[in-house]
Every structure is written in structure tokens, then in C-alpha cells.
């Protein structure tokens, strides 16, 4: 089997050159290199914007196709298409600062998304209460206690200050800062190493995120 960079050498060469120029422009203060780096980034932004348009058109095409499949699906697709057309016409014709356009955002988009978030909250609470029923173990118990302590420490209990939980210098706050920061830094280091390795593999043609 051929290596990845030999299967499509042209695209691999483009990836290699652009990646090296952007990377060198990030570290080296050289004006032509910086200029080329910026051009490449602008092209990437332009391509991403075009991809967004393509995604929107693909979404429209899928829902347009569903109109002829079944009446039950056609209802939702018809609702989507109607909302999309009205929002585009409203923002394009009246402008984004028009009160009607803002009303669509304030009274349609935000309440719907907030309601979904509330559903998630109720579902998480329900699952948490039945955790011990399905998995009665030490780890489940530790997880449950940690959640409870975090919630208790986040709010004052009707004006009652618990010494070990409330306050900046409390034991729980110190543990949360140290343990939380340590864990997150470990995750960030892992993400950084993974990004570097992935970047090197892309630069050397071993990884092909742009496809074969």
C-alpha cells in the first residue's frame, strides 16, 4: 500500500507548503513570510464561509426532499423551511437592527434554546437520583457526594456559612482550585501535544484531514 503522501502528491504538497509557511510565520518575524501567512489564513476564512453556505443549502435540500417523503416529516421540514425563508427575508429586507428581527431572536430562538437546557437539567437530576439504584458502587457514591458538595459550596444555604465549604480559603475551595486546575492543565497539555503531533503528521503528509 502506498503512503498517504504518494496517493495524491499534489494535495499533500499544498498542505505541506501552506502549513510550513503559516508555522514559520508564527515563529519568525519576517515580513514576506508574515504576508504569505496572512494570505493563506484569509483564503481559509473564505473557504470556511463558502462551506457554511454549502451547509445551509444542503440543509435546505434535505428538508426539501423530506417534503415529498412522508406527511409526518413534511410538517417539520415545512416549518423549518418557512422559518428559514422568513428569517432571511426579515433580516435581509428589514435589517438586523429592526425590532421585528430582534423579536424573532428574543421570543423565538432564546426561549426555545433555554427550554432545551431546562430539559437537560431535569434529565440530569433524574438520572442522578437513580444512579445508586442501577450502579450501587463506591465510585457512584463518590461521584454523588462530589456533586452535592459542589452545589452546596456554590450557594449560601439560606445565609448559613459552612466553614469547610464556603469562603475563599475553605477546604473545599482550595481542593477545587488545586485539583480542578491540575486536572485541567493535564488535559490542556494533552490537547497541546496532540495538536503538535497532528500538525507534524499533516505537514509530513502522514495525516490527510482533507481526505484521500
Amino acid at each position, binding site marked *: 500500500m502506498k503512503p498517504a503522501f504518494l496517493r495524491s502528491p499534489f494535495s499533500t504538497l499544498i498542505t505541506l507548503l501552506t502549513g510550513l509557511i503559516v508555522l514559520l510565520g508564527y515563529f519568525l518575524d519576517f515580513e514576506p513570510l*508574515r504576508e504569505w*501567512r*496572512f494570505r493563506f*489564513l*484569509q483564503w*481559509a*476564512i473564505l473557504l*470556511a*464561509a463558502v462551506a*457554511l453556505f454549502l451547509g445551509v443549502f444542503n440543509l435546505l435540500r434535505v428538508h426539501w426532499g423530506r417534503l415529498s417523503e412522508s406527511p409526518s416529516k413534511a410538517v417539520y421540514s415545512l416549518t423549518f423551511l418557512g422559518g428559514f425563508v422568513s428569517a432571511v427575508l426579515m433580516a435581509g429586507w428589514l*435589517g*438586523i*437592527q429592526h425590532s421585528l428581527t*430582534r423579536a424573532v*431572536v*428574543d421570543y423565538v*430562538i*432564546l426561549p*426555545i*434554546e*433555554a427550554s*432545551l*437546557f*431546562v430539559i437537560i*437539567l*431535569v434529565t440530569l*437530576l*433524574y438520572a*442522578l*437520583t*437513580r*444512579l*445508586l*439504584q*442501577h450502579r*450501587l458502587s463506591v465510585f457512584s457514591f463518590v461521584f*454523588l457526594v462530589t*456533586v*452535592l458538595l459542589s*452545589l*452546596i459550596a*456554590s*450557594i*449560601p*444555604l*439560606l*445565609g448559613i456559612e459552612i466553614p469547610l465549604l464556603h*469562603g*475563599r480559603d475553605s477546604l473545599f475551595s482550595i481542593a*477545587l*482550585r488545586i485539583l*480542578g*486546575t491540575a*486536572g*485541567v*492543565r493535564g*488535559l*490542556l497539555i494533552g*490537547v497541546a501535544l496532540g495538536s503538535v503531533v497532528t500538525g507534524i503528521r499533516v505537514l509530513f503528509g502522514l495525516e490527510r484531514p482533507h481526505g484521500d
Partner: protein
Amino acid sequence: MEAQRCPMCGRVNPPGLEVCQYCQARLKPLWVEPPQDSSPSIEVGSTRARTPSASNEPLLPDWLLESRLDLGGESSPRMSEQDDSEQPLSEEASADEERFGGLFSDELGETEEDVPEWLRSLRDESESDQGVTATAAIEEGSEPIPFWLDFEEGKAEESPSEAPPSEKVLPFHEMPFEGLDLEDESLLSEITAEAKPISAEEPQTVPPFETLEPFLLEEQPSFPPQEQGVPPQPSASTLQERASLSPEAAEDWMSEIPSWLDALPGQDWEEGETAAPETPPEFLEGIVPPFVETEEELSDIEFPAWLGQIESTLEPQLESLMDTLTPAETETLLQEESLGEISQEQPAQSLAQEEIPVEVVGPLHGLRGILPAEPLVAEQKKPSKALSELLVTDKQRAQAELFLKLIEEEGKPKPMPSPKRARPHILWRMLIFFALFAGAILGFVQPQFATPPQELSVGVFDAMQAVNQLPAQASVLLVVDIEGQDFAEMQATTAAMLDQMMIKGAFFVLVSANQSGALQADRLLREVSRLSGHQYQPSSGWVNLGYLPGGVAGMQAFSQSLTEVLPFTIDGEVAWQNDRLRNIRTLSDFDLVVVITEDSTRARQWVEQLKGHVLESRLLFAVSAQVEPLIRSYYEANPRQIQSVLAGIRDGAIYETQTARPGWAMKLWGAYTLVVLTAIALILVGSVFYAVLALLNRPQAQGEGKER
């Protein structure tokens, strides 16, 4: 001329025809036997003088004919010298030699030197034996000599002067019955006694090809003896018949030319020489003569009565029918008749050809009539029983049985175990929802149930310092990457800080890496301005640059040159021509950069891409409570990578408390506190209830597990 009657079918043919027009039999014999008186019979030892004609030559191959002609010139003088003494024998021998091209001749070119020693010794022995033993036995008369041993003696006694003893053995010269006195009754009785058992056993004789393979027998019809010119072998009855003949008749029979040989071309007789009259055998006497020459002879024949009736009825009809036919029709009928005979023979031949086995394997594949040697060669032998039996121990046998049992069980269909699904406790879920909803409503309506946070966190303190250090009419970049579901939390988190900025008359530049972030940013400033009592409006209070595509690449390009990446506002106006933004060319030109996001990944990307383009002292992060652990690692780093972090409603409420301007965060704080308290209570109650339920059901569950 008179009409001719066919000797074969008995039908009348017109005069002048040589072949019967009905059965194609010859009407006239090839030669007519002369009367007994005019033509003496040919004696034994004499031969018909034939002209050495070239008509016999087609029988011989060219090479043999040439050699014979070459040798003929040498032999002719010797033949002339021996005319007086050996004329009968030499003439007949020469005739035979001509006929067979000298194949049996030992005179031409054969000398004592050419004869091999083994043949010479055999000749000497035969001469001595014949000269001593045979003659002595006859003279003594002690024992009857078989007739086949008496040939030479009789011949010597009968014609001692005609033919001197010669070493030559000619197949057509020395007759097997020559010299026998066939009138001797004792000899005849002996011959008949030997012939009778043969005739008696004739019906019981085994067919000569019975032991042969069937496919060999099937080949026989394709090579009839008549076509190869080989005379048929005389049967036992024929031999008996010939033995019963008189000596003269026997001589005639021996000297006569066979019919198959007589049919050959060139059989011309000399003038004055006629063949001996053909005498029918005794069992055919009085029935039908083989050839009838005249009507008188035909009238003398007595046909059966039934044959006479048929003849009398069919003959007129056939004659009338033949009279109506034209010669062309007659010829057509003859051709059709010949074709019919051929077509009747073809199926038989094809059928016989199909019955011949065809080889199907090996290099002779496709050939027909191959000897079936393969079944014998490839005969399979049954393997010995000892090799086929395995030596299996009891343990191995038990394991094999267990393995077979497992395989059988795997092949059996098993009912699909119903997935153990927890029954949905709708009542419990409804209770959770209504409890949270009631706590939120009660906390929002009655905020006094919740105690406002009094402790000042480090992040809030640093943020307050950064805002307080802003100059008047400062330019602030707001990166708003929030979704609609988190808008309320982020508004509560940033409301007090934005209020302080608006108090200082800051000018905001809005940008978002989220598709709906631009609208959320616009709404955020509107709500903060409305709730705080400011008169901030677009264009005068902020510029919305809209959506920044490209993800991390867009952030990097925006950090490098924001004016080139986003030159226009969301309304399509030139962004950087605003009076408040004339001095803005890079990110470092902003007095403060605030990133507002609830997504941890997005927060990390902005930290990484803004690094180096914005001073750490001018970079603030207002994030959701869930992002605080991640962004705190950048905040608590040494040196700090960001100036401050505002996380969640709690920090927003603290900020408002510290600024003494209660706002959106404090309104939500009561509801938030009661909802969290309700959630804690529900978790405790529910966990204890279901834990007890699980403990009660554990023995039952263990029993079900054992049953499975």
C-alpha cells in the same frame, strides 16, 4: 430372344439384360460351364494356363510390381529349362506367383545361403521324418494313419512321375486331400465319424467372439471380410461336404478358383479351357439350382405351391406396372431404393458408434474405443481399518463430546433476552420538574430567601480593576461566543461589568466566532443598556462586525489584522471609518478585550490565538461556571496569561454587590439559589430512596442472575 428369369428373385426380366432389374442380381453367369464331354476336368496338379496379364497388376503395389518385373527377366530362362519336367507345377506356381507377386516364391533369388539355419534344419527334419516315419507306418499297416499324415505319401504314390519331390510349399498347389483314396470306405467312414461330432456339436459351439469385449465386436461390421478380400472360412458342414465328394470332385473343388477370387478382374480363361461343371451339394439337389440358364431348366424345377400362387398373382401386376414406367422413372426408383438401403444402414452404424465407449480422462480423452485399462489401474483399495481409527483417550473423548455439545448449543436458537430497562418513573420526573420550576419562580418573586454573596473573589477584583482603569471613551472589543441557552447566565455574569464600561462611555466593537453570536452580542448590549438605564445604540455605542468564519484560522487572522479580515459591519457599513475607531488598527490598540463565552474549547482557542497580540493586562474572560476550571488555569498561571476571570452568576452577583448597583445578576440570584437548593434536596431524597430500593431488590436480582 426369350425373357430371362432372375435366379435370385425369380422375376421375369426383359431379354438382353445382364442384371436383374428388381434385385440387381446377375442374370448371366460370368462363365458358362461347358458340357462334361467337351471339356475334361482339370486334373490335380495341372492348372489353367493363363496369360500373364497386366490386369492382375492392379492388385499389387507398385514397388512389388517393379521388383517382380525386375526379377522376371532372370527367372524366365530357368522356367524354360524346366518346361519338360516341371511344367504343370511350374505353370501353376508361376500363375500363383503372378497373382501374389512372388510373395510365396522361393525360387527367385533363394539359394541355400539365403535360407536361415533354423529353417534349413527344420526342412531337413521334415524331409527325414516324412521319408522314414510316414512311409514306414503305411507299409507296416500296423496303425491307421490319419489322412492328414498321408498327404505326401499318397501324392507320391499317385503321381510319382508327374511331379518330382520338391521342397517348395505352395499354398494353392498342395491340396490337403490330394493323394487320398476317398473311395476307400474305411477312410470315408473315419472322416465322417470325425465330421459328425462336429456337425452334432455345431449348435452348441461357442461363438468365436463371445469372450471378446463388446466394443470389439461392434467394430466387426465396419470391416466385413468381403470388403477386405479375405475368403470366408469354410464351416464344418462345408468340410464334411467336401470330404464326402468323390476324388474327382475333390480335385475340382481344390483346383477351382473361389468365388471371391473369381470376381476379380482379369479372370479370363483361355480358349478351350472351361471350368468344371458346378455340382450342387447333395442337400441342395432337387431344390433350386444355383443358376438356371434356360426356360427348360426352369420348367423342370419344382417350386412350392405357395410360391407358385404368389408368382401367379404378382407377376401380372408387376409386368403391367413395369410397362407403365418410363426408363427415367425406373432409374429414379432404383436410385431411391439404393438410397433407402443406405439410410437404413446408417442408423445402425451410428447407433453402434454411439454404443462404443468414449474415453473421458487422460491423454486419450475424446477417443472412442479405447481399451478400458483405467478401472483396473485405478482400482481403489479400501484403507486398512487400523489406520482409520484414532487413538483417543478418555479425557480427549470427553473434551470432544463437550466441544460437540457446545457447538450444538450454539446452533440452537435462543430467545433474545429482553433488555433490562428501567421503568420510566414519570411521576418522579414530573415531581423534579415542578419542584425546580417552583423554586425558580419563588426565588425570582421573593429574592429575600437568598442571601447575596458578600465575599469578593480574586477574579472579580481583578476585573473591577481592569474596568476601573479604562479611560473615558475607551474602545473595548467584545468577543461574544454564546448560545441562546446560556444567554441568561452570561448576561448575569457580564451585566455589572458592561454597566461599568457604559458608565465610562466605552465604545464597543462586537465580533463573534459563533453563527448566532453576533445577534446575541447585539441583544446583550441592548439588555444591559436597557436594564442599567443607558442610552446605548448601535453605531453610536457599538459596532457589530458580525460572524468570524474559519474557526481557529479566522481567530489567528483576526488577531493578526482585524481590519483586513472584517472590514465591514453586520449592516454592511465600513467598520473602521467610525470616528471612535480611526485609531484602531490592531488588537493592541483596544483598551480592553473581553471574551464572553460559555464554551470551554472556544475559550481555550481564543486564549491561544490572542496571545501575543493583546497585552495580558487588557484581556478579560467572562465565562460560564462550567468553563471556570479550564480558564482558571490560564488565569492562575505564572505569569498570568489573562487579566481576570468572571465565572457564572455568582461572580456577576458579587460584582453587582461590590459596585452597589444591583442588576440582572441579583435578580437571578434568588431563583438560582432556590433552584440549587431544590436540586440538592431532590438528589438526596431520590438517591436514598433508590438506594434502599436497590438494596431491597438485590437478593432478587442475584437470584435472577444465577438462574441465567
